[in-house]
């Protein structure tokens, strides 16, 4: 630089220093090789006396190369960083983000590709003087491998200004946020593990696990020699448990199995957890993955056992009446009824399976017994049970007087038997018999045709006792002769139907609360009135009959008119997630922003494990909730459990295919900060602090 320009240059330099710190003063000069670019970075732009901050060893790795985790796997070596700090400063240990599985021939290594930051915490002494500089010297040593391995080492220096209060760097803070998101979090699930000979397993227990929610899992052992690194780990997810099979390696067995488990959920997001499992007996997988034939066999047995489950009991009552009516009937009649009933059951199962498949294909998440999530369905079912019960009690009759039928399902003809079968399936679904969970779980992991085959088997199983009647009609001869006992039995069997109605109303209390129950019972009253009126019409004739029929019709219409209101009553108090969040809408966000309030948006779904864990670990904590309150941050929550076009659009706009999505809008408006999919308390707290600090500043002032 020519000398005569010096004052000008000096002034320009001074201005530059005043307006902005030198470019990336918080990152050291890089070490570069064809394989790596490595630096030491600081999350702090300026540090303060006695205030801990983090440094990081940042490796950018050329494509095809990798570096290593603390347990490198079958070969390799973890990186080392030795810090030379000013006197009185203390350094923690290098912290390792969760690794990837890197196969090489028959071997498997654990490490990192592309980019990784290993954080290390530093506590400077309280005696530092603001205005001076904190000089860090760091000696790094690491191995980088593709097919061949190259050890690299470098010394880094970093000078950090000391100020009265620490300042985070806007350039490196995202690196540390990403690094923190990549760190395994403590597993919230109790873990057990065991080995017997060469085989073993690790099991986590938690109600967030279900076959539909976990896509993939892998366990990275913390130590060498315990688990065979390259052996496939078979994943079995049962309701409430996740089990990974592990192959024993040749080293000594420790007292606990330590390591990191990576779980990829249905939404496709991977989250990692540190696990420390006491070693004991080999935990058994909850429900083994079934093949088609096995699943079909289980389904058949499950369907058969379904006949003994309480949900189906009232329907069985109806069927018992039907069978009693067949006593003494002709073989052909018996066979016809049994075939119709079997057809009703089997076709309903197929329809149910098809509907579930269609819902699933449409991106909805529907499980076994999904129709019971609708309060309208539950209320209508309770009325149907009441109506059938009243019929059995003899309040009114359906069909010809000769028919010993049962309400809707006993028009005497085959249509009645078919309807009974369909009704049985509809009511039976919330019940799960032994073997069924395994069969249904397996069914949905199969191609659609196989899924339907399993449902078919289940239907056949449930109808089996009656199908036998069709095959061997002479069995009906074992029934007692027709007589007055049939009428008694019929009247007695009304009581299970009333019981079923009571149970359904109880289900409704869970869904809709007190208002829903009032609507359901009021509707029940109208149905009972209608039944009585029909009975009166059947007994009377002419004008009286006509009037009674009209009254019954009005009462039924009145009951039906109540149904839509049940949907309104659905706003049942649910367990609060992420504090007291309001439901999300784009309009509500702008409204709150206009009021000058920062907004935190949590997009979640009931089936999203990552979401639930984030909420438990990083959102529902006292510290985070307090920070939300202190920052006057409004909490909005979007529930994507059943899909939602508005939420889907927002996800798309953020380049996401699914939940979780966390957005933090500052009070001053503008685009939101997108938080990582894996949250820790620290990440959320820092984001809140950054947002509220920006908001508190006078516009125009530099924000960080």
């Amino acid at each position, binding site marked *: 630089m020519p000398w005569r320009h010096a004052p000008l240059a000096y002034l320009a330099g001074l201005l530059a220093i005043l307006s902005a710190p030198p470019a990336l003063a918080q990152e050291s000069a890089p070490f570069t090789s064809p394989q790596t670019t490595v630096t030491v970075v600081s999350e702090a732009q300026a540090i303060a006396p006695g205030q801990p901050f983090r440094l990081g060893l940042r490796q950018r790795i050329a494509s095809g190369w990798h570096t290593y985790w603390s347990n490198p796997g079958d*070969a390799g*070596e973890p990186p080392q960083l030795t810090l030379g700090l000013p006197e009185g400063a203390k350094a923690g240990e290098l912290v390792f983000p969760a690794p990837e599985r890197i196969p090489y*021939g*028959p071997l498997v290594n654990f490490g990192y590709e592309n980019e990784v930051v290993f954080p290390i915490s530093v506590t400077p002494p309280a005696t530092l003087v603001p205005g001076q500089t904190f000089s860090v010297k760091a000696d790094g040593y690491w*191995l980088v491998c593709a*097919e061949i391995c*190259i050890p690299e080492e470098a010394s880094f220096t970093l000078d950090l200004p000391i100020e009265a209060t620490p300042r985070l760097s806007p350039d490196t803070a995202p690196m540390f946020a990403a690094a923190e998101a990549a760190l395994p979090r403590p597993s919230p699930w109790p873990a057990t593990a065991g080995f017997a000979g060469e085989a073993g397993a690790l099991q986590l227990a938690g109600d967030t696990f279900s076959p539909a929610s976990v896509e993939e899992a892998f366990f990275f052992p913390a130590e060498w020699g315990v688990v*065979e690194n390259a052996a496939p780990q078979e994943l079995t997810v049962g309701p409430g448990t996740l089990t990974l099979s592990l192959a024993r390696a*040749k080293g000594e067995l420790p007292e606990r199995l330590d390591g990191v488990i990576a779980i990829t959920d249905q939404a496709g997001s991977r989250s990692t957890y540190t696990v420390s499992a006491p070693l004991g007996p080999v935990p058994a997988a909850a429900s083994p993955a079934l093949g088609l034939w096995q699943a079909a066999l289980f389904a058949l047995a499950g369907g058969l056992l379904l006949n003994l489950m309480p949900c189906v009991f009232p329907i069985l009552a109806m069927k018992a009446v039907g069978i009693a009516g067949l006593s003494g009937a002709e073989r052909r009649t018996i066979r016809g009824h049994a075939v119709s009933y079997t057809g009703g059951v089997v076709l309903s199962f197929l329809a149910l399976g098809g509907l579930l498949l269609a819902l699933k294909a449409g991106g909805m998440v529907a499980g076994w017994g999904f129709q019971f999530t609708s309060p309208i369905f539950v209320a209508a079912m309770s009325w149907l049970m009441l109506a059938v019960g009243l019929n059995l009690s003899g309040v009114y009759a359906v069909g010809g007087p000769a028919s010993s039928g049962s309400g809707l399902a006993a028009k005497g003809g085959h249509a009645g038997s078919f309807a009974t079968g369909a009704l049985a399936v509809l009511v039976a679904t919330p019940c799960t018999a032994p073997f069924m969970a395994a069969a249904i779980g397996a069914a949905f992991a199969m191609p659609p045709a196989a899924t339907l085959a399993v449902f078919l088997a289940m239907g056949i199983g449930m109808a089996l006792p009656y199908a036998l009647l069709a095959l061997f009609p002479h069995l009906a001869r074992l029934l007692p002769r027709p007589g007055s006992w049939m009428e008694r039995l019929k009247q007695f069997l009304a009581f299970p139907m009333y019981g079923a109605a009571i149970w359904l109303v109880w289900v409704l209390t869970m869904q809709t609360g007190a208002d829903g129950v009032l609507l359901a019972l009021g509707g029940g009253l109208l149905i009972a009135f209608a039944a009585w009126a029909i009975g009166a019409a059947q007994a009377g004739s002419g004008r009286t009959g006509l009037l009674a029929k009209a009254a019954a019709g009005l009462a039924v219409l009145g009951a039906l008119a109540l149904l839509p209101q049940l949907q309104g009553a659905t706003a049942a108090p649910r367990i609060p997630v992420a504090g007291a969040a309001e439901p999300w809408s784009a309009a509500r966000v702008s409204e709150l922003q206009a009021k000058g309030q920062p907004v935190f948006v949590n997009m979640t779904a009931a089936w999203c494990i990552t979401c639930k864990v984030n909420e438990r670990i990083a959102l529902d904590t006292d510290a985070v909730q307090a920070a939300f309150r202190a920052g006057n941050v409004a909490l909005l929550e979007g529930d994507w459990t059943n899909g939602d076009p508005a939420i889907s659009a927002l996800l798309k706009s953020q380049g996401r295919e699914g939940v979780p999505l966390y957005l933090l809008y500052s009070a001053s408006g503008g685009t939101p900060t997108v938080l990582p999919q894996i949250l820790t308390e620290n990440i959320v707290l820092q984001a809140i602090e950054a947002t509220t600090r920006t908001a508190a500043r006078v516009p125009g002032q530099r924000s960080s």
Partner: protein
Amino acid sequence: MTAAITRRLALRSALLASAVVPLLPRLAHAAPSVGSPAPGFELPDQDGAIHRLADFRGRIMVLEWTNHECPYVRKHYGSGNMQALQAEATGSGIVWLSMASSPEGMQGHVTGTEARELTASRGARPTAVLLDPQSQASRAYAATTTPEMFIIGPDGTLLYMGGIDSIRSTRPADIAKAEPYFRNAMLDVLAGRPVAKAVTQPYGCAVKYAPSA
């Protein structure tokens, strides 16, 4: 006292078993384990002579997995540590086989001529260098790293498998500071003692494998 008798009995039955085992079909990729018969192999050395495990029955054997271009191997040859161990072993009557395990076209692959030149230029003292470009022995021993060390007893039983020492690094300065796992095991075997640490963690570059046929 009783423990010693039990051990002697076990040794005798192992001797008996080892006479039978070669006649039995062996699982193709069963991992080797200490106390069991060491997996067999049949490989050419640097001069083309064929060696089998059974040829060395009656002598203590050391197998050293190697790839002369691997930085971890270079640590032990560059410092003279490996040559010293080889001299000590062969001086005590031990058969030392260096297993050049890299397939053709990969780092560490050597021909017989190259193996002879390397032995001469490095002052190495193995009994022989065996060439295993098809990964026959690597698969049989489930070898993971270079270097990786195995010791086989005179009866063909595997007595030690693992690392050369305890400090996983490429720095020669660490050799003196490390616990010499392999040498300790070798001294135990020479003295007729049970090996105190019979399985240790090997460290180094990944063994290069030929694609499986």
